[in-house]
């Protein structure tokens, strides 16, 4: 029954849900919209009847006393009870589960995300599982955007620009911060959003349950798969010469910035690839190899 009621969320036009906690959020969103709909429809019906029944032609003389019954009180109490339930029964416990029950660092995949105008720097701890230190004096937009100290724990760290890779069905713990202004890290399909504030590191955690490949399969006949107009800001010509793999990157999960952060806020997008554990590990290795090659060239 409850599930069934909640299914209104299928009709709200939400993005596909691809995270373990997304279903319950969608259901609650659905129930709240049921409440809104019932209130609106109820009051709307009353409103229309009142306007028809009491227009000055059909009712030339107004009644000084008006409504005597107290039915409306029940409606008001009803609203209070429903709101109390939504708050105490659903939103508060869910918030603690989604926002303040930070997973154990060892139990989750850990990533640092450092936002900047207008990109997402993704920082993996590398084979040793430890993040290296950072120092703003080392920041170089070309070669070292996060000012990573390439020694000790930082020697094997992997830093990418706008490329977040995650294994499916494993909890990820993101340490989110910003270098410059406030951004907001949002992945609509993962039902996560968190402001990235300079000077603060804020945990964001979720468990993706759908790989990017599965997702792209799912959206095959939507505009997202075959965009038009501006072709995701790339223009038709560019879009058409992209490889299918590259196109899939655009069609897949994107990290959107939700907080005004400057003139290119509108295209501050990062790409999230959710893959199987093997694919993920292979990707990490590949990145580690690049790092070694670069080390040999000594020009990172």
């Amino acid at each position, binding site marked *: 029954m409850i599930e069934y009621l909640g299914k209104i969320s299928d009709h*709200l*036009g*939400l*993005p596909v849900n691809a995270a373990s906690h997304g279903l319950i959020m969608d259901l*609650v*969103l659905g129930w*709240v919209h049921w409440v*809104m709909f019932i209130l*609106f429809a109820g*009051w709307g019906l009353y*409103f229309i009847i*009142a306007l028809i029944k*009491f*227009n*000055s032609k059909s*009712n030339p*003389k*107004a009644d*000084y*006393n008006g*409504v005597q019954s107290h039915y409306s009180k029940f409606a*008001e109490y009803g*609203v*209070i009870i429903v709101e109390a339930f*939504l*708050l105490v029964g659903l*939103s*508060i416990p*869910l*918030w603690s589960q*989604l*926002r303040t029950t930070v997973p154990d660092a060892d139990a989750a995949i850990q990533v640092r995300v450092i936002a900047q105008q207008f990109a997402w720097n993704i920082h993996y701890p590398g084979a040793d599982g430890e993040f290296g230190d950072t120092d703003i004096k080392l920041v170089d*937009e070309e070669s070292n955007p996060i000012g990573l100290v390439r020694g000790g724990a930082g020697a094997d760290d992997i830093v990418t620009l706008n490329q977040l890779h995650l294994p499916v069905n494993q909890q990820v713990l993101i340490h989110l911060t910003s*270098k*410059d*202004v*406030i951004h*907001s890290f*949002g992945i*609509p*399909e993962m039902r996560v*959003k*968190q*402001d990235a*504030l*300079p*000077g603060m590191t804020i945990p964001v955690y979720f468990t993706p349950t759908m790989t990017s490949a599965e997702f792209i399969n799912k959206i095959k006949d939507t*505009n997202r798969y075959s965009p038009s107009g*501006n072709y*995701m800001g790339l223009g038709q010509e560019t879009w058409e010469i992209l490889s299918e793999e590259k196109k899939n990157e*655009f069609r897949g*999960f*994107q990290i959107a910035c939700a*907080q*005004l*952060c400057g003139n*290119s806020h*509108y*295209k501050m*997008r990062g790409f999230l690839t959710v893959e199987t554990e093997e694919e993920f590990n292979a990707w990490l290795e590949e990145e580690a190899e690049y790092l070694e090659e670069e080390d040999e060239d000594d020009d990172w």
Partner: protein
Amino acid sequence: MSDSHHEESYWRKYIFSTDHKTIGIQYGITALLFLFFGFSLMMVMRWQLAFPDQAVPVIGGLIQWLAELNGFASIGNLPSDLYNVFGAMHGTIMIFLGVVPLVVGAFGNYIVPLQIGAPDMAFPKLNMTSYWVYFIGGVIMLVSFFLPGGAANSGWTSYPPLSVIATTGQTFWLLGMVFLITSSLLGSINIIVTIIQLRAPGLTWMRLPFFVWAQFVTSFLLVLAFPPLEAAGFLQLMDRVFDTSFFLPSGLVVGGEALDVSGGGSPLLWQHLFWFLAHPEVYVLILPGMGVIAEIIANNTRKPIWGYKSLVYSVVFLGFMSFIVWAHHMFMTGMGQGMSIFFQTTTMIISVPSVIILSCFMLSLWGGSIRFNTPMLFALGWIPMFGIGGLTGLPLGLSTLDIHLHDTYYVIGHFHYVVAPGTIFAIFAGIYYWFPKMTGKMLDETLGKIHFFFSFIFMNGIFWPMLIQGMAGVSRRLADGGESYAHAQGTLHLNEFMSYSAWLLAIAQIPFIINLIRTLLRKKAAEPDPNPWRATTIEWTDTTSPPMGHGNFEKVPTVYRGPYEYSVPGDSTDFTPQTSKLIKDR
């Protein structure tokens, strides 16, 4: 109080007047012009959202000129930098230069003294000062459009660090805000004192028209909420001009360069100070509107407003609660459980008085004899629109759901339902309703109805699709309307529809403008009917139309009854003025 008998010079009478009615009209005209300007900015933005990067038709040359003056490249299109300028200034102008001056400066100023039987505001000179300070604030905001880098571009919320590293426009924004805030403080003190001190004999608190109550609570909100923002504005000004770091943390790297500031400040501090004002501010935008609606509903149902006492208690409670909900704008800043419980709970609680107020208005219809004139149509249109605005606030107030909806177009849709078809409809209702009082001439009903029906349709055409886009997760403040983001692709087609609705909404205002001009040019009747709506409150029953110059009343009215004594059993007419002693004495 100045005496009412000597002839005044043109300047004293029309420009530096201390008569609350003249000041009210000055506020009204200035604010309507700003409202139109703020809306025009949005019409250009809507072009960019519907047809990204194409040259704006008709005024493309102007846009290009402005963009190049500001230092942005443009081929007559609206570049993203200028989009952000327009967005920030649309919000700022609509709120601080349009709606607040209209509902408080114009309606509050003009109507409140008349409704309470006062000869003027308590401090006429202060009143004049408040208008001119507002005017200067407006000029500063307008001038800032021509600076290098353009006007402020960090949103009407001006979050640091972005606002601190922004171009000079932001400095002007802060200075302009200081003037606007000062003006509001002067104006609201005046309204508070006037209502407390200058009520006519017999006009006890529970006999005040609801409109006066709404103005009273609104003024308290302004007086108590604005000072923290004024202080915060100065702090941000210091950060920008004197390199302090009230809002800047250590270790900022902007564009590859470490920012040369001492650091140690907190960007969240600004958000708290800002929203401590800005949440009460949204009630400043809506409460006077509710007051207008109450007057018009009572008048046009020809019966007392239902639950007058509940309305009064609710509006006072609402005003109080509005001071402790501010951080629901900040759920996504990394808030812990304690804070989130507190602010979610207060937010749910504040919805209760709003529901009560709406219920009272709806229940007032029952048993009425409803006249569908233009003011009433706008008032009736207001009810479902404000209803949608209020209901869509429910998911946003639950922090868990805000995870998905925060900073999306759902938020934009939600608050525009409150302020655009909400407050703006209340403003139109008020203009149609009180225009005969201000000028002695009735506005044309046919043009008024055309104005209402098309405005109603196009308002929904603009704002309903925003809720759909927001549900899909489309962020706000995107200079290409979401083109770049994958998750926006499914709802992009709505952009054109919304934009056409916005432009058609502009066209729907033409009957209104024609109506105003035509009526103003028309010759006034020798003795205009002072009470064409057959209303009960003092401004209609004890003044001429328009009311006489300084002083308002021939003799001070005495009040014997509540504000909405319509269809009193035993009376020969269906309205019993507040100032009539006996029911059948007329």
